[in-house]
């Protein structure tokens, strides 16, 4: 167990360092930072002085260490396009993305798990077949197409829900703005989180169904039935509990997926979150922003995977002993 943790921890640190290195290379070597800061009429002597002042003449390792130090203290540079601190920009947009992601995850789990259990227990029924065919569409339809179809139906034709933006937001202190406290905010949240959660919901539904079917085939379930236990107890108390163990860890990993797909949904619905920020950064070659985002996602994903690994080894004793079973990373 200790070895596993150490292993994963060192891997996490390595990934973040590599991402930081790529970031640093981007910022330092793409374009000339001095050119971006002084005017055209600056003399060579001025430029040399500025170079010295910015510390651009120091050895590369020293600059990298300084970059890491700054990043650790929250100074991630200044965005070319917005002319603001990158960290301030990220902090400003983070609540929007988090709210969207959490809502989508809730929809995916609260709908996906029951539907998966139901289709497993009622195999072959017409409703099950319809749901499974529908889930195939959910996988074949790209997220942005789902979003556009929703906009078409609910905004253009029916006019029930807004198609873009976040509605009215309320600042609840600490820089956190939330749309959950206003009616227009909640209305604006429905379509994006539904779009984002639909794909994950079909995945979770299929996963829960597959796991449940496998568990139902095991011997201990047969013996439970043979002992005369009621169907309800067999299905939910025994089968479902065992199903949920790998499902929980997969759900944890899917949170990272939701974060990635939120970029698409934010672009479709013009949701002012981190995803839209990075797309604009790419389109306008806003290098500091892009580099900071790279380090941010490397850190996020490495931490998510570390947490999921630790969780899984805590739940499943076979993994702790280095046994045959391990997390099924799909």
């Amino acid at each position: 167990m200790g070895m596993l943790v150490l292993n994963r921890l060192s891997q996490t640190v390595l990934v973040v360092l590599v991402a930081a290195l790529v970031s640093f290379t981007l910022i330092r070597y793409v374009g000339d930072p001095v050119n971006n800061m002084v005017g055209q009429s600056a003399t060579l002597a001025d430029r040399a002085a500025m170079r010295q002042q910015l510390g651009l003449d120091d050895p590369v390792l020293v600059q990298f260490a300084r970059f890491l130090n700054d990043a650790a203290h929250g100074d991630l540079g200044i965005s070319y396009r917005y002319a603001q601190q990158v960290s301030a920009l990220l902090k400003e947009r983070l609540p929007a993305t988090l709210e969207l992601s959490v809502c989508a995850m809730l929809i995916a789990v609260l709908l996906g798990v029951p539907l998966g259990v139901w289709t497993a227990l009622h195999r072959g029924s017409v409703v099950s077949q319809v749901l499974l065919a529908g889930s195939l569409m959910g996988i074949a339809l790209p997220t942005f197409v789902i979003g556009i179809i929703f906009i078409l139906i609910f905004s253009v034709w029916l006019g029930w829900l807004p198609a873009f933006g976040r509605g009215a937001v309320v600042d609840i202190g600490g820089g956190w703005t939330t749309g959950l406290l206003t009616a227009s905010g909640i209305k604006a949240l429905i379509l994006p989180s539904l779009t984002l959660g639909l794909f994950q919901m079909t995945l979770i539904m299929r996963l829960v169904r597959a796991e449940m079917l496998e568990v139902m085939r095991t011997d201990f379930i047969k013996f439970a039935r043979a002992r005369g236990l009621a169907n309800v107890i067999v299905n939910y108390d025994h089968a479902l509990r065992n199903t949920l163990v790998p499902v929980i860890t997969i759900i944890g990993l899917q949170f990272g997926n939701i974060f990635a797909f939120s970029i698409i949904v934010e672009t479709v619905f013009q949701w002012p979150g981190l995803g839209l920020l990075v797309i604009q950064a790419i389109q306008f070659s806003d290098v500091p922003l892009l580099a900071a985002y790279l380090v941010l996602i490397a850190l996020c994903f490495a931490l998510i995977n570390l947490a999921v690994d630790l969780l899984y080894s805590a739940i499943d004793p076979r993994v702790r002993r280095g046994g045959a079973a391990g997390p099924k990373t799909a």
Partner: protein
Amino acid sequence: MSEEVAAPRWRDSDLVHDFVHSPVAIVSVAVTLILLVVGAGASFVAPYDVINPAVANVIDARLPPGAEGLAGQHYWLGTDPQGRDMLSAIIFGLRMSLLVGLSSVALAAVVGIALGLVSGYFGGLADAVIMRIADVQLSFPAILIALMIDGITRTLMNRDLHERLAIPVLIFAISASFWVQYARVVRGIVLVERGKEYVLAAKVTGVATPRIIASHLLPNALGPVLVIATINLALAILTESTLSFLGVGVPPTQPSLGSLIRIGNEFLFSGNWWISMIPAAVLVLLSLAVNLVGDWLRDALNPKLSTA
């Protein structure tokens, strides 16, 4: 004892039998082939040339499907905001999606298989390094990897270099996110096969290592690789259209299903739904067909499901 038994014809194989008896497989393979042929022959099939900006007539912009243009052109699927025929744009966009999809899958497969063979056969440090990189990469979603690689290489290039290199960069970015599956599967197969007698016999009789790998180990991996490649193709096509929709994929001068959908997105509220929805329908059809072929292939080639 001296009776000659004819070699089994491929027509009698399990795979063909499975195919002939599965309507889903027949329909999805047929649809995929039709779309492939239409896309490949885009220059011949499309009624109007979409790449040449001189052909488009802005007066004919945003006409509904079935409308007549000013100079008597018949627009089966309507026109886009610049007056380009939607049917032709979709056909050329289909060609682009198939080109990028097939290329990135081919590249990912070649690199992945090679790394998997090396990793499985030689083991040791190469194996450890390759598998560690693969593990790390698997913790990130494919679309994010493709987006980041594409985005970062964009910022490194200036405008006209970018125009010329956009598509190769896109292909590289997408294949970089897919190679891991091939490597892992091939490595698993090699690890199983290399302990078997025929491989040991080949080694002992002095067959050169590359020959062992190519003639003995590689053919065993081709079945599962084909299944992965088909499912990957659907994903690659979707990834390309997603990146084009986001504006960071194919350059705007080239038609792509994703960028057509993006252009049409702005006109949804004006009631011009066809600019967005028809390319979307074609994209979904293609992705669904390829997905179904991949699913069928996986079930047909799965030895555990065979009744034998």
